[in-house]
């Protein structure tokens, strides 16, 4: 279990980049994952350069296969990041959506 305070510390920084746009520098698709992500495999993870030249990693959501390409424009969105049980705090974080 990830402690609630750890989730809170991460989230307060992530909100600063919500809604920003950028482009994919590289991407992969993960077929073998850790347990918390097993229910969504295979899932794409992209490395994105946002405006202002800062890079971030996150999963790509709401996508078609044709969006999996270097140079694809994306936007930062807020999403649930892990599959947790009903007793745990649901962690939210950043993911990317093609635009």
């Amino acid at each position: 279990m990830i402690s609630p305070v750890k989730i809170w510390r991460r989230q307060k920084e992530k909100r600063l980049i919500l809604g920003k746009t950028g482009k994919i520098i590289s991407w992969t698709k993960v077929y073998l994952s850790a347990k918390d992500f097993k229910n969504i495999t295979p899932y794409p993870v992209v490395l994105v350069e946002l405006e202002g030249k800062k890079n971030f990693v996150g999963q790509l959501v709401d996508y078609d296969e044709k969006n999996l390409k270097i140079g694809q424009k994306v936007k930062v969105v807020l999403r649930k990041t892990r599959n947790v049980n009903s007793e745990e705090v649901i962690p939210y974080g950043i993911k990317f959506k093609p635009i």
Partner: protein
Amino acid sequence: MSYIISFYQTKFGELWEKSLTSLIKEVIFGVLKEASLKIDQINAIFFANMMAGVLENNLHIASKISEIIGKNIPIFRVEAACASGGVAFHLATKYLSDNSKKTVLVLGAEKMTDYSPEETTAALAAAASGEEQEAGLTFPGLYGLMANFYLQKYHYNEENLAYVSFKNHYHGSLNPKAHFQNKVTVEKILKSPYVAYPLKVLDSSPISDGAAALIITNDKKLIKKSKNLAKVLASEVATDTINLSLRKSLDQILATKIAADQAFKKAGIERKQIQVAELHDCFSIAEILAMEDLGFWRKGEGGKKIKELSTMLGRSSLTVNPSGGLKAAGHPVGATGIKQIGEIFLQLVGQAKERQVKNARFGLAHNVGGSGGTAVVTILGN
């Protein structure tokens, strides 16, 4: 000056009948026997392990080793993810440079196959950044990002990567201690399922159990008596940001370049003098990047060069990963860096049998932690 006088490793693989403790015990007494030494002649032990704390709630192993050997000497545990072995060796050489007439034992051991792939994948991901873990990135995923970037930038494809595994499986077929001793075709590699695009099962090193140990000394009397000797010319460690998103370049492991430049300067030899190298091929792309970052190939030409198979045994003046590398010899994380240096030792003293590189005088071992957050370059000579 320090010399390696002995090397021993267990077989690498799925060793159901062996615990971490039994692996440690086997290599300690195995390496002592190889050197015809008694445990009383060892002044300190450096122990490399990454995952026992996470996977089997097993820490303070230094004291458990003391129990195995029945001695009260200093024992240090070293953790730097997959570079734990290389860093332990580095610290052992530093210990010797500060203490004359001493002999130390360096060992690495890892028990990984008792757990599900998901548990092991999560434990390995502990060596990635919090942000990367939260994105669901695994180690194959991190190297998948690097591989995809490299292939697109330099206009290669997955076939170029496949030649790394083809070569290393051939070498593994000559190594009785290797996890995999079967040859694989390029076609079979390309047909294997993806782990993290564009990397497939046969681009990836396996999850293995195993242990390896070396004895290093600066005791002149012992050096004089030893039949097999390899001189430690350099052991250099460099680090870098763990987040791929904070790296300046995705097609370079900067820590490797820094450690290599320092190691060659210290050893006082040129790249072209290295005849045998054990490189950290945790994934096929990693060997190509390493060949470029170590300065053996120019940046971007690795995809083309690997297809020529010039680094296969007997083909040219440099053989790479004669043990089979991590890919075929196996990758019991903490043991890997020690096995790499051990393989170079065997090559330099002429005991590598079927996979012997002829007249090898200088060899290099390259060990990487995580996605390049730590790199160790060791150069030996005979």
